[in-house]
């Protein structure tokens, strides 16, 4: 049984032609819309309206826009746990998406999905919370596209941490072996939750992807025009049946892994968090039985190094904001106008979503649903 009860606002995405050149205005519009949608959801999370975890894509707009601008509404997209922004980019109705994230039965998946499993057949876009699964799912989409709709391309978004997941690596191979029209897009923010990814990773991401026979490209994620160009080459190749590709893009996510990220909390409130963490660490480090002095010193210096690395990343990489950089590519008046239009649209959406959620002091209780 197929239920198609939601009138999705897909025209916004479907209307776009596949651009041959780079349209900076369109890129900026997309990025602003994605950023604003994330911002209101992050606010809603802190207001206690979003149940559970929330992984925002703030900082990844350059990647999302640069890739998605090449797609028609018929191409397929496999997303991971960080899917709100790309779904907005695909043209999902912001209100329905927000309602879903807010845990409403009026949401785009009627409250079944939450923010990790949003599945929108009309947009040929689906998300999944298992790290690495977007790869083989996109490969599957590509098999279907190649057979039923040649010329359609399939995209997988995944993080750099996911590149240690066997199923993703397997899917690189499968894509090459079956010459599938799929492009794997790695959004490399350097961190997988609280782990610095290179510390658990051998070799180099580009080499790894290339070794499976994928055509590879890379770009800096804060330069949407570069992402667009690199993605364009791979997507065009894949569409033409010339084989799958891998795009590596760097990015910085100031919000960290999810809202309330422990690393970000430490950075924002070192004193307060130290007070939380110190007693346990101290009692561990000074326990009468345990490792040698060298082992304990090693442990503490590792933890310190991790904190320092985060502090450095968050400082040095602060400027890597694709939206700010993208703004510079266009006329100021145009930028202002886009911001105004998008802000209004997103505000209306979140107002409507919050409004129809009814009074809801907290979540996790059955009174917490829409009234």
């Amino acid at each position, binding site marked *: 049984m197929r*239920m198609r009860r939601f009138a999705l606002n897909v025209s916004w995405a479907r209307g776009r032609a596949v651009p041959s050149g780079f349209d900076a205005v369109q890129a900026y519009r997309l990025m602003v819309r994605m950023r604003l949608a994330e911002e209101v959801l992050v606010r809603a999370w802190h207001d206690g309206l979003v149940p559970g975890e929330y992984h925002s894509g703030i900082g990844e707009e350059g990647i999302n826009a640069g890739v998605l601008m090449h797609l028609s509404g018929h191409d397929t997209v496999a997303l991971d746990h960080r899917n709100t922004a790309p779904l907005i980019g695909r043209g999902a109705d912001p209100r329905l998406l927000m309602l879903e994230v807010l845990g409403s039965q009026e949401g785009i998946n009627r409250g*079944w999905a939450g923010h990790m499993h949003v599945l929108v057949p009309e947009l040929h876009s*689906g998300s999944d919370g298992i790290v690495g699964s977007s790869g083989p*799912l996109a*490969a599957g989409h590509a098999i*279907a596209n190649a057979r039923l709709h040649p010329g359609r391309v*399939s995209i997988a978004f995944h993080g750099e941490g996911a590149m240690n997941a066997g199923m993703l690596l*397997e899917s690189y191979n*499968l894509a090459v072996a079956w010459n599938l029209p799929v492009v794997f897009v790695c959004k490399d923010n350097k961190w997988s939750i609280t782990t610095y990814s290179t510390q658990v990773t051998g070799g180099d991401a580009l080499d790894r992807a290339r070794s499976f026979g994928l055509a590879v490209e890379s770009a800096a994620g804060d330069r949407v025009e570069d992402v667009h160009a690199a993605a364009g080459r791979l997507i065009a190749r894949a569409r033409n049946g010339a084989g799958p590709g891998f795009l590596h893009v760097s990015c910085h996510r100031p919000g960290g892994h999810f809202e309330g990220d422990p690393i970000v909390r430490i950075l924002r409130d070192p004193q307060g968090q130290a007070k939380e963490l110190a007693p346990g660490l101290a009692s561990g480090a000074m326990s009468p039985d345990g490792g040698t002095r060298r082992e304990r010193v090693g442990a503490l210096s590792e933890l310190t190094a991790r904190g320092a690395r985060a502090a450095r990343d968050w400082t040095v990489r602060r400027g890597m904001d694709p939206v700010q950089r993208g703004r510079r590519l266009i006329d100021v008046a145009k930028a202002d106008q886009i911001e105004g239009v998008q802000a209004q649209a997103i505000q209306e959406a979140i107002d409507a979503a919050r409004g129809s959620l009814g009074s809801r002091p907290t979540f996790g209780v059955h009174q917490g649903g829409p009234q």
Partner: protein
Amino acid sequence: MTVMRYDQAVDHALGQAMAADERIVTWGEDVKLLRRDLLARFGPDRVRDAPISEAAFMYAGLGAAMGGLIPVVELYMIDFAAVGWSAIANGASKFHDFSAGQWDTPLVIRAGVGGWYSDGGQHEQALWGNLAAFPGTTVACPSTPSDAAGLMLSALQANRFVVFLTPKLLDGQLLDYLGGESRSTVDLSRLVPAEGAQGEVADPVEPIPIGTAALRREGSDVALVSVGVGVHRSLEAADVLAAEGIGASVLDLRSIAPLDREAIIAQADAAGRVVVVDEDYIRGGLSGEIAAILLESGNAARYARVAVETTIPFAPHLENATLPNAERIVAAVRALE
């Protein structure tokens, strides 16, 4: 009606469906060779060899189903599905639900199942109980060629996620493929149930609704409830019991999910004694679920079960003693007295 082997019956139904529906494709390890007749008929785009990447090619099956195909993803043995288990546990069993019923996922996983041919404890599991645990999962295991054809056709038309399990002991092609017929020194005929391995199949195949059990034998003293090869072992046992004056009915569940509650309860009511014959682990879920159905229905039937209680050993005599053989079934019935 044509007489064919169990495996031929499955491919016969699959071929019929592929001819009728361009969306049906199949892949898995060595599938071009295993399904060479389908390859010759439908070409290499629809019949593919997969790398040894169960996780990816099972998930890709789900992805392809989302993209509009009806993939039949084949595994030599359900044991290997454990390597790609997340595609079932977190993927195929859930995406339709997560989408609030908006996205159909007509994926069929086709896999060999079970033992009796000395392949060791890691290549002979049933695992159907584990599979049936997941909401949104249909699990069928036909015990005859005719059922295999009819249930495969239903699986392909179900428009939902189905795990289609084929007992390897009934699969003449696989037994041969694994080396079987290349040595005349071995004779499995005492082990292979003739009516399961070969039989009449309708042409064209008619779908058999998944979720309806079949009564293989009538009997009023005890109901043997089983699925797959266990059905044939139960029939063997029923013969022995008949000689002792005990009338055993044999109910072939045909699918593990959904279960045919009504048929189970009817048999239990009629006989007052139920023995579940299950090639899965005793804690696997099927034998317990049938107990729950009996208790929930307020049925006062006496109950016993014959299932796999340890890791399955390799040595044939140990293996046979571990699987639900006819002697164990007979003993369980006698003990219920």
